[in-house]
Every structure is written in C-alpha cells, then in structure tokens.
C-alpha cells in the first residue's frame, strides 16, 4: 500500500492549491482524468497533482524498502528451509516493489537520490506499520496475512490510478502480493492448528498486528484533508474508511476459519449494512508512530542508512569499472 498520505513535517494541512494554474489547461486535465484517461509523464499536469503523486509514490516506495527490515530480521531464524526460501523470495519482491515505485516517481522529475536522502534524513515518511517490532515467528505470518492483505486492498484500486507509470507499477506489484498474503496466512494456519503454545503465539501476533493493520488505511475520511482532491484526480480510487471497512469484512472470517479471535470486543456483524461494525481506533497511537516516536523507528532508519553507507564501496567500484571500460572502448 502503504499510501496513508502522511504529511511531511513542513507540509501545511490544507490540500495543495491549484489557484495558480491556467484555468483552461486545468479544466482540460480534470476532464481527461474524470473520463478515466491516463496521464503520462510528458503530459501537462497541475503542480499540486505532481507534488501529491511524488509524495504518495515515494512514501509508498519507502514503505516497501523499510518493510524489508522487520521481515528480513527473521530470514536466518525461519523454522525450516521451505519457510526460509519463501521469506527470502518475499523480501526480495518487496525490494522490487520499492524499485518499481521509485522509478515511477522519477518520471515526475524527482531523482532517486533526493528520495533516498529524504528517507534517511527522516524528512520523508513511510508506513507506520513497519515501526512495530517482529517479536516471534508468528509475526511473520501476521504480517503476510494482515499487512500484505491491507496492502492488496489498497493497491488493487490503484491499478487504475490516473497516473500511468504509477498504475503500471501497481499492476506488477498486485501480481506479486497475493503470494505474500497467502504464505503469511498459511503460517498462521499451521500455528493455529499446532500445539497450544503455537496457537497462543498466533493469537498473540494477531492481537498485536490487528489494530496497526487497520491504521494502515490512514486517518478517517473527515480528518484526511487531501482525500477529496485525490479522489477527484483519481490518485486515490476509494477513501480510507471505505478500504478499511472492506478489509475488516474479508479478514474477520479468515481469522474465524482458523480458530483465532480478532481482538475487538466491539466487533459484530451488522445484518442491515451487510458489514462488520468495529471498535474505535486509537489515533493518538497512530500519530505518535507517524511522528517517529519509539525505539523501532530509529532502528529502522539506522538500518537503512548503514545499508546505504556499507554499500558505498560497491557503488564506487561499479562506477569506476564502468568509466574505465568506457574509456578503454573509446580508445580502441
């Protein structure tokens, strides 16, 4: 997903303005988008559209990359070779997702380096979900099932988002996500059907990941200043609350099917609505995590920064090799 439209530190709360745009061009643009036409990199677009997309796509890319950390943490401790190979493949996919998205953002005129710098300096945000620690193996199951599940819920409509390169990246990503979700759910199934201790572990992971997963959809619609404009521009296809409701509705029966209990006393099926009612979300916690409070947030950025710095010699060697070869070829 992980497009919770988190605000950058220096961003004002109001939606970006289109007051300075040429009204005729703006009207033509809005008409194209309303007709479900795709906007491509060289097409005219309002600055606010470009900026909103850069923020959304780069946050999404950062989330894919930072999301590799809590799971990568368990690769060496996977319980068997099958699980290890699967987890390795999943984490590798997430790296690929980050790359597709960085490439899509680059078509809007921001460089990869600027984005990486923004992440490492703490200016850019990523999904809050990755600031929670992965304490047991069951967390790897819960992440695949719930976190990737929420991501799918968010990403499927984005395959028809109005910006062509973003939509195409989403198509590739969606093709790969479903394996992520199923492998996670399978881990939960096995644990839930295991010893009482294993089942407790699965329940504990669900208890800890349930609410953060619901928060992945972002603030409620009435507290989400950019939603109206983003929906009109087809940058978002469905609102945060709509997607959250869908997620709850499909996920609760999956928990029940393997004998796990969703940790929400207020959860109950509403016959009239044909949907689950669920309890209030603790948004204070959400905003604290967005602000990067908590030990894990620091650890994540440290891990990213040192991966980047430790890889410097490889990048230097590759660049030097390439330029030497180019010079040799030129001399021939």
């Amino acid at each position, binding site marked *: 997903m992980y497009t919770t439209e988190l605000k950058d530190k220096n961003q004002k709360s109001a939606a970006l303005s289109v007051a300075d745009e040429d009204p005729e061009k703006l009207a033509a643009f809005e008409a194209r988008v309303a007709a479900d036409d795709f906007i*491509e990199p*060289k*097409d*005219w677009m309002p600055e606010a559209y470009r900026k909103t997309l850069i923020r959304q796509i780069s946050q999404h890319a950062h989330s894919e990359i930072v999301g590799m950390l809590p799971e990568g943490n368990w690769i060496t401790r996977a319980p068997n070779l099958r699980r290890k190979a699967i987890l390795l*493949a999943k984490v*590798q*996919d997430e790296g*690929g997702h980050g*790359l*597709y998205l960085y*490439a899509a953002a*680059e078509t809007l005129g921001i*460089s*990869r*380096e600027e984005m*990486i*710098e923004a992440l*490492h300096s703490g200016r850019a945000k990523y999904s809050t979900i990755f600031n929670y620690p992965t304490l047991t193996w069951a967390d790897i199951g819960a992440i695949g099932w719930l976190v990737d599940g929420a991501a799918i819920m968010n990403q499927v409509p984005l395959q028809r988002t109005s910006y062509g390169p973003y939509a*195409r*990246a989403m198509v*590739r990503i969606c093709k*790969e996500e479903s394996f992520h979700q199923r492998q996670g759910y399978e881990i939960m199934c096995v644990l839930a059907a295991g010893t009482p201790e294993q089942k407790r572990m699965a329940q504990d992971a669900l208890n800890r990941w349930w609410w953060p997963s619901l928060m992945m959809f972002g603030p409620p619609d009435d507290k989400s200043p950019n939603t109206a404009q983003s929906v009109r521009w087809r940058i978002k296809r469905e609102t945060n609350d709509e997607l959250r409701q869908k997620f709850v509705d499909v996920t609760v029966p999956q928990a029940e099917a393997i004998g796990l209990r969703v940790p929400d006393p207020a959860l109950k099926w509403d016959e009239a609505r044909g949907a689950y009612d669920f309890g209030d979300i603790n948004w204070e916690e959400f905003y604290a995590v967005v602000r990067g409070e908590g030990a894990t947030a620091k650890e994540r950025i440290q891990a990213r920064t040192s991966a*980047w*710095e430790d890889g*410097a010699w490889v*990048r*230097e060697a*590759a*660049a*030097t*090799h*390439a*330029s030497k*070869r*180019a*010079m040799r070829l030129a001399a021939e």
Partner: protein
Amino acid sequence: MSKASSSEAVGPTNSSWPLWEVFVRAKNGLAHKHVGSVHAADERMAIEAARDVYTRRMEGVSLWVVPSSAIVASDPKETTELFEPAADKVYRHPTFYTIPEGVKNI
C-alpha cells in the same frame, strides 16, 4: 548521503547511475515489450538488475536494456498533428467497402 565516488571517475558517479529502459521477450515468437527501468553503472549491470527485478517469475526468455537517454519520444503537444489525420481515412479499413450480398471469401 554517502560520499561521492572516487574523484577520477569521469563516468557515472555512484549518485547518478544512468537510467536504462528494460524490454522483455516473454517467449520466442513474441516481440520484446517495455516493462520498466533500472539504474545501473553499465550495460552488464543493467542486464543483471533487469533480470533480478523483472524476470523472477519466468516472465521472459530474453532481455533488452536501452539507455533511457537514447529514446526519442513524440511530444504530447503534437498528438493531434501526428495521429489525428488517421481518423478521417476510414477507407484504410476493410469494413469501409460494400461487397455484394452472397459473395464469399473476401
């Protein structure tokens, strides 16, 4: 960010590897199709990165990487001028022609 690459490097530095467009042939008999892009120091690295990123699930049997800077694109502002004339030449389509009832294999 990290330090810049070695000072004598005249080619791409570590902070600005060129961009390459990636094309994949899904199977023999089909054309290469654009799938995305990668940054890489040189063509060898571009092929390897493209392989890792775009063909992890048997998506292809052959890869092309092309420096993005080598691609010349038409300008969206010229869309009308370039593509619209085709719309008033319907006689280029077989359905434009009236063939007598009962005539077959044409």
